[in-house]
């Protein structure tokens, strides 16, 4: 079986851990658990006919002032940048943030995911998506289990490229 290290990055509280919990354990909790810098989870999934074990590194924060060890980003095959659709500060300067993750990880592509879709009305969601100039790969809700599997499938596919 192929094993791949994949990263989940993004600001604190955007729902990275919730997405992983939903994907790995099919659980959702309203409680906020701040991860201590990084937490590694694993999940086996099938991409086409290939069985792949994803080692998901849940990395808290991305900017230099958040003091994330650069080594966390090394050796990864794919990365997902998660932002909170309901908090503007998590999706401002997305281009810069993605460039930083690319630089630290050496990856050429990053899957961009907007989470917490359930907190917005249809109109609000449209307005937020319209305000972001770069391509968003998926819009998810860990709470309502919306698009979570697809987001990780996209991540797994990216890791096989």
């Amino acid at each position, binding site marked *: 079986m192929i094993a791949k290290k994949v990263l989940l990055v993004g600001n604190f509280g955007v729902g990275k851990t919730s997405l992983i919990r939903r994907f790995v354990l099919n659980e959702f909790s309203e409680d906020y658990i701040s991860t201590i810098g990084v937490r590694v989870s694993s999940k086996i999934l099938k991409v086409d006919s290939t069985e792949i*074990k994803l*080692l998901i590194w849940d990395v808290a924060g991305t900017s230099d002032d958040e003091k994330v060890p650069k080594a966390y980003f090394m050796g990864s095959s794919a990365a997902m940048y998660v932002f909170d659709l309901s908090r503007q500060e998590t999706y401002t300067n997305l281009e810069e943030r993605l460039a930083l993750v690319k630089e630290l990880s050496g990856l050429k592509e990053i899957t961009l995911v907007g989470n917490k879709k359930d907190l917005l009305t249809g109109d609000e969601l449209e307005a937020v998506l319209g305000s972001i100039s770069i391509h968003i790969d998926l819009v998810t809700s860990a709470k309502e289990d919306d698009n979570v599997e697809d987001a990780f499938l996209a991540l797994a596919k990216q890791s096989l490229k």
Partner: protein
Amino acid sequence: MKKAAEDHIKDKRFELLIDLLLADDRQDISLLKEELLEAKNFKSKVDPFVDAKIEDLRQNFPVYFGDTITETIKVQIKESQDEVVEALYPIMGKLVKKFIASEIAKLFESINNTINEKFSVKSIIKRFFKGKKTNAEDVLQEVFEPVVEELFVIGKESGLLIGSYSRGNIADKDMVSGMLTAIKAFAEDAFSKEGQDLEDIKFETFQLSMMNFKSIYLATATSGVLNAEFKDRLTDSLNNLADTILRNRDYLADESKLNNLLEEVLKDLEQK
């Protein structure tokens, strides 16, 4: 005859007097009698119900009052934690003391057996020819024999598990490898020791050691007392192992082949 008639009249008067004097008392007595009879009747009627209820309560006490009592006890314990601790402390203290005494007795027995064995003529002659180890090291090693519990071969940057040998039952070795790599990276970054690697993490008699190579690192978890000689042997074995793996990269691509190699290396280490 006249006298008898007078007597009769006297008697009648006397009875009349008694009736007059005792009328109230007789009424009270008859009332009391009625009340007593009534109570007796009531008791005979009610008793079976009361008995049945008592029996029901006796049998179903936990059902009726279990939750209330549990809740009350919980509240009581919560509100009087200090008192509970004070009450339990002497009992727990005795238990702990008893446990420690029994463990120390076992330790003494083990040390005595080892000393007796080590100071036997046979052993002294053997050591005379073998040399090197001190008696203390010898005894300690026998009592707390060092054992390699886990051996992981991990990708240095990715933290991916390439191969492993395990005596224990670690549920998710991949996750452990990832977290170990993260802790290693965190410690190296936090203390800004560029070019230096985290090598040991100790928990009392359990030690995690990491040997770093260019693209991989070997993580071992050992229990027992690690004396200098065992450390030397382990280091030699791990260096040779890394040399074999890095010279023949097939091991990095074939997990079962690598796992067999790890098992062989550890068997050799134990037999030395």
